[in-house]
């Protein structure tokens, strides 16, 4: 049995790396991945605590966090695609300067 404190330390490291990534990287996608690292760190520590406390609540929250992460990624991807499309057409389409 691995002590829970190991998991806490590991997840703290993971969380710290994620925060660092958000702060030091400029690329929106990498920032997004770093956020995923943070969420994974939180999930990990939740599962570890759930085992230690013999309470299912932690795992339930992990499930919801995964749901939320998926939803956020879906919206984020849609936004990225929209941005790219708008900019792309703006580059290609010289006439788009006509906007009202």
């Amino acid at each position, binding site marked *: 049995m691995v002590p829970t404190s190991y998991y806490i330390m590991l997840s703290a490291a993971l969380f710290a790396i*994620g925060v660092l990534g958000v702060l030091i990287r400029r690329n929106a996608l990498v920032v997004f991945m770093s956020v995923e690292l943070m969420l994974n760190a*939180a999930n990990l*520590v939740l599962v570890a*605590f759930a085992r230690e406390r013999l309470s299912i*609540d932690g795992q339930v929250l992990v499930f919801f966090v995964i749901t939320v992460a998926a*939803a*956020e990624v879906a919206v984020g991807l849609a*936004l990225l695609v929209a941005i790219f499309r708008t900019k792309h057409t703006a580059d290609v389409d010289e006439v788009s300067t006509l906007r009202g």
Partner: protein
Amino acid sequence: MESLQIPPVDLRLLTPLLIVVGWAGALLLIDVFFVPDGRKKITGYLAIAGLAVAGLAGIPLWNLSGSTFSGMLVLDRYSLALTWIFLIAGALSIAVALDYLPRHAIEQGEYYPLIMFAVGGMILMAQSADLITLFLGIELLSITLYILTGFAYPRVASEEAGMKYLVLGAFAAGFFVYGIALIFGATGATSLAGIAAYLGRQPFAPQEETLFLAGASLVLIGFSFKIALVPFHMWTPDVYEGSPTPVAAFMSVGTKGAALAALLRVTLALEEAQTFWLPILAVLAAATMILGNLGALGQSNLKRMLAYSSIGHAGYILLGIMVAAERGAEAFLFYILAYTLTNLGAFGVLIALEQRGEAAWSIDDFAGLYQRRPLLAVAMALFMFSLAGVPPTAGFMGKFFIFTAAYAGGLGWLVLIGVLTSAIAAYYYLRVVVKMFMQEPVREVRPELTRGLNTEILIAGVATLILGLLPTPIVLLVERSLVALGG
């Protein structure tokens, strides 16, 4: 095979929430199948009707209070009052959008149900007595707002604002979840009651205390992002500027109000943690009041100015939360109501001046407004006075209540900062008024007033005046709404 049990659930307690979310879901389908393109306003009217029904359905609940879903959802007068404020905010945000969206060629029927979903998330936040529920409420609200921010399709600014908001919102969510995780690890509970019960059994192991404090700090950081407290406010001006103005209006009152309301409930519930929590809140409040208002000083873009001013107002509201136990909660509710109405009104005027393709957000566009549209200028002046806290407006009464409550609660130095920053704020608000009344127009701006906008500005203006002139009935109502919120 054991049969599944359905928990004893009192659905009455969440009638408004159910109506809002259910009607939003139905409206999505109605919009697609029955509302023809180009008449999407019908969807908007239906959405307002749904919000109104939800508000009316809340009335019989006034004398009801209790909790359901294993105590994770509570209904009390506090949450009910907030529910009504949120419903008003949602309805007014839809009213200003009715003509804005087609005028800017970004009309899509989904806008209206999405606003309703956001309102649902806000109501859930006001009612949740459990960190998991709170997290889901915040995320429901946030994800809807990311979508709405990036809603104006061909406008890159809007999409980029949406992306920026999403990335920072997800960052905040990361802090929030990790905080919940650590609190869960320390106390073994996620419900506010469970955590409070654990905290009541002092002393606890130092290791667990460390975990709890770390968790509480992280949760506070998550809140600060959502409320846009200094130093977690950097995203606000950009996101407000980029998003469609009705969405910015909704965001400025919605996210802030709901997150602050949840923060108040958490603060009240975790009484034992307050010795740790309050000093941090005090520093945040001071920084927010000072930097928010100073930031607004330099803005010549009115949308950004309102963004900074909303940051500053969050600082004032935070004072109410800090003294929530003694009369602060009442001042908080009153301030939220006053701020919601006033800010939505100010954004309404902004929307009236905004035309397709040219954003009339520069303060110069307000020059000489009085000569062209006297009533509009008077309304804007009223909102500016109210935001600045000049009597006899709602904003003045709100500030008065907050400051007296904070002073009585022993936060004298914060009140001093609040008064001083209000004086600074008066400068930039009144600058707009001076422009409108004293100066000649710099360039031609034709305000477009339509029915939805007129109604919204009228409602907001009249309410701002009434709250300022005759606050007593509302104050009584607010006072009664807090009887049950003992903790």
